[in-house]
């Protein structure tokens, strides 16, 4: 489908590819430069999480339409071991203080919508959306 593209995350350099894909789509959707940087940072964080904790997975980028707005949807999916305690990883302060970066709370702040499902069997799927203003 033309509206969806994806990048497989296996090595660290795939993080860069995912960022590039996201930035291109964000530019096409005419997000401002600050929002472009934020979307890219969110993608970077999600891809890096896959690379570090799940070993491999993928980042999917979609163009989406709301009622009277357009947006970018970023999906991070992996078959890793799943997140044991989702509430814990959504808490502030743990990742940044340890130098692990923005973490999932950061991703949530950078985007407008955020949804996470995780299980031992099916790995983790994180869906996030940002709308043009």
């Amino acid at each position: 489908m033309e509206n969806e593209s994806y990048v497989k995350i296996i090595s660290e350099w795939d993080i860069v590819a995912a960022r590039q894909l996201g930035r291109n789509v964000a530019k096409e959707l005419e997000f401002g430069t600050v929002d472009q940087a934020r979307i890219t940072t969110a993608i970077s964080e999600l891809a890096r999480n896959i690379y570090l904790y799940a070993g491999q997975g993928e980042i999917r980028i979609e163009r989406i339409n709301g009622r009277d707005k357009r947006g970018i949807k970023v999906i991070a999916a992996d078959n890793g071991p799943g997140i044991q305690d989702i509430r814990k990883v959504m808490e502030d302060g743990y990742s940044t203080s340890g130098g692990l970066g923005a973490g999932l709370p950061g991703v949530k702040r950078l985007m407008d919508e955020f949804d996470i499902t995780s299980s031992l069997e099916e790995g983790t799927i994180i869906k996030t959306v940002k709308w043009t203003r």
Partner: protein
Amino acid sequence: MEIFKSRYRHLLRSYLKESSEKALYQAQLFSRKSILQQISPEEIISLHSEALKEIFPDIQEEVLLSFDFLLEVMVDYGLAYQEHQSMRDQQFEIKSEIEIAASIQENLLETSIPQIEDLDIGATSIPAKQMNGDFYHFIQEGQSIHIAVADVIGKGIPAAICMSMIKYAIDSLPESRKSPHFVLESINRVVEDNLEEGMFITMFYGMYDKVNHSFTYGAAGHEQGFYYHSVTNSFEDIVTKGLVLGVDQNFTYEQYQKQVEPGDMIVLLSDGVTEARTEEGFIERSVITDLIQKYKQLTAQEMVEQIYRDLEKMQNYEMNDDFTLIILRRKV
């Protein structure tokens, strides 16, 4: 600092040459390291302007001057940021105190679920924050199993301290004074005596007679539970009247009784279960009974845990209140 300076210049130079995403990714990694090294944002501005000066020796003087202005703006951002860092350190200290307190509380409030031949019992209680203001307690005495469920209005540390008090108060009641209305009336007085104005506790107290399979109960302003009739495969609310504890020292509580048939279930809960808040607002009570229907093939303990997981997800993992759910099923 010198290392950061040359690293910044190097990264900026390669970005200007290639304009590549890779260079921007490295910018992010750089940023992460500099945050960790407590380099403040105004220092980043200074790194940037110095790097520009070196990369473009012929840069307009006024463009460089503009960075003095930007720097001035960033100093205050840097301060706000440092202030928050110092607050974070304080916060870790308090949090570790609360963690210890929570584990003490867990020890204090520990109660084991009775293992009875004719009954299948499941119970779970999960705090919204670290310390639980909900509480359940099982006591086996003679041919009865006593079940208390309580909820302090309020959450966190104050609520948790109240709960420890309630548990000791229940434990110190002599056996002869442990019928539901007596318990509610004594605890009501304890609460009145010991708690501040404006603190309330809701409580359900029930007594299951293992021989006659009757359930005697009463409640003080507590969230209504459900009774599941196996024969008709239907639910009814466990209706009780009674003021919350801590308001009127002399209140007399009513007592009710139900005959429990094989396959019937008694579902007790705190309002944290029914007042789960999703994006569309509070859930309907029917959501709970639907979940019980859905999972009724499981053991009582599996049911309460599975229902918690479903409701946790519905709320997007942001629990607003302590959650306590108990299911008793009379086996066939």
